[in-house]
């Protein structure tokens, strides 16, 4: 049994723009692993097939916007 899924996303803070950056490195992998479930749902929404780009990068003005977007992806 694989005990752990790879780290497939990060949330960082760009000091120059003051924005939070959500970056998913492999949408397909995260979609399948359903990493932390919410991220899995988000990846599912953005995944457009095996041949489409699998990298996703979204910038948010603040943490509330990031959380709101994650909630939206769950409820969508």
């Amino acid at each position: 049994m694989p005990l752990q899924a790879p780290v497939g996303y990060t949330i960082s803070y760009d000091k120059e723009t003051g924005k939070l950056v959500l970056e998913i490195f492999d949408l397909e992998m995260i979609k399948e692993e359903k990493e932390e479930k919410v991220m899995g749902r988000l990846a599912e929404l953005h995944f457009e097939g095996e041949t489409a780009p699998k990298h996703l990068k979204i910038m948010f003005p603040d943490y509330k916007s990031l959380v709101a977007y994650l909630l939206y992806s769950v409820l969508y």
Partner: protein
Amino acid sequence: MARHLIAEFRARAGEYVEQKRFDLERVSRRVAELEKEYGVHFDLSSPVPDESIGKAVFEAGFTLAVEAGLYLVDESRVAKFREEELWEALKSARNRIVVGRGRDARTLGYREPGDRVFVFGGLAGTPTPLEFFVESAASYALVPRVDGIDHGSVQAVMGEMVRSGAPSEVLAGLREMESLRSALRMAGRPGMHVLGAESSVGSVGSLGAMSLGLLRPGDAQLLPVLNELKTDYHQLVKAYVGGLKGVLGAALVDPVVGGFARGPAGSAIVSVAEILLAMVAYGASYFLVHPVHIVKKATSTIECMWVESVVGLANRYMRLPLVGDVWPANGGGTREYLYEVAANTLVAVVSGLNLLGPVPANGTQPNGGGVDAMFMAGLADRVVEENVGFNRAWGLALELYKRYEARIMSPDPGKPFWELYDAKKIAPRKEWLETINETIREIAQNI
């Protein structure tokens, strides 16, 4: 009357004992007897503990707490607590507490092996340069799964080394707390629980931070139990003022494995006794379990993992919020560091502990970042979700141990935060992420 005053008055009226005699007779000799009386043994050739050992460790630790008491070094006297007082304190102790503030508040509690793990991230007392303090702290706060932060210490201010008890130590505590607040605002999580004022060995850093409102209700300060079964007025003063200000006490229980607490069996007994005494004398709200091997140091040694594990098992009879420290010998950027984190996490989680760390290079160098805590928390969650059993987790940990055993005594401290991370973007560098993911795949394939 506040617990801290009871401890002071009891000690002042208590028996005078020379410190050496306390260490050798009241602690070491008695612990050796208790190991035999209660049948608590550690066997390096077969280190997986039997889950039933928890009861014996609890009873032996309880007996030690009652008999030895808490030694107040400033007075060279012992504060004793009666059996009924310890039971009463245990009964009235909260086994779940809400820490942090507002939408960033979380629950930290006693946990059964299947319960969610509370995760502290941060460099936990590691000397960290001020120029990277905010960024390195933010790297942990940016990880959604990190529930609370316990970050590094400030060792120099205005170009001068900090001196214990001096104004420079107060300033270091203030700089640390101001930087933490900036980091939490940056990450958008201003109410996150802070275990702070790590820069002060004594009490002045905490007192300064509390008086200026930088350490606030919902936060916690570190209250070490001195080795072994000891305290001083610094700790009692901090605990007392913290109690008045609504700042929680996080008791640090860090017996030296191979010191006066004897080997792993004795250290587990001493840990339980120190938890009980910190509860009754400090009014501590939660407890950090951090056995330190006298030579090898790291919590990821077999001996220290065993201590964390059986103290977790003994906690079934105390039901207190316990946190297992994860302090590997190696540092960020190395695979051995990740093996250590994984092994330590597996054992701690199935033993009922929450997690704090990982703190690289035995807490000596700031060689890690938030993604390390993400790795630790991801594994902890998977262990809980998959309901990994006690023996299986220990078996996996022992397999992992083979991969880092040789590097415990000659560890690779790894790279500092500013090489593992792009400090301007507070994002882990590609190479470090790749090493983490390759190691995860390797562990999945081979273990």
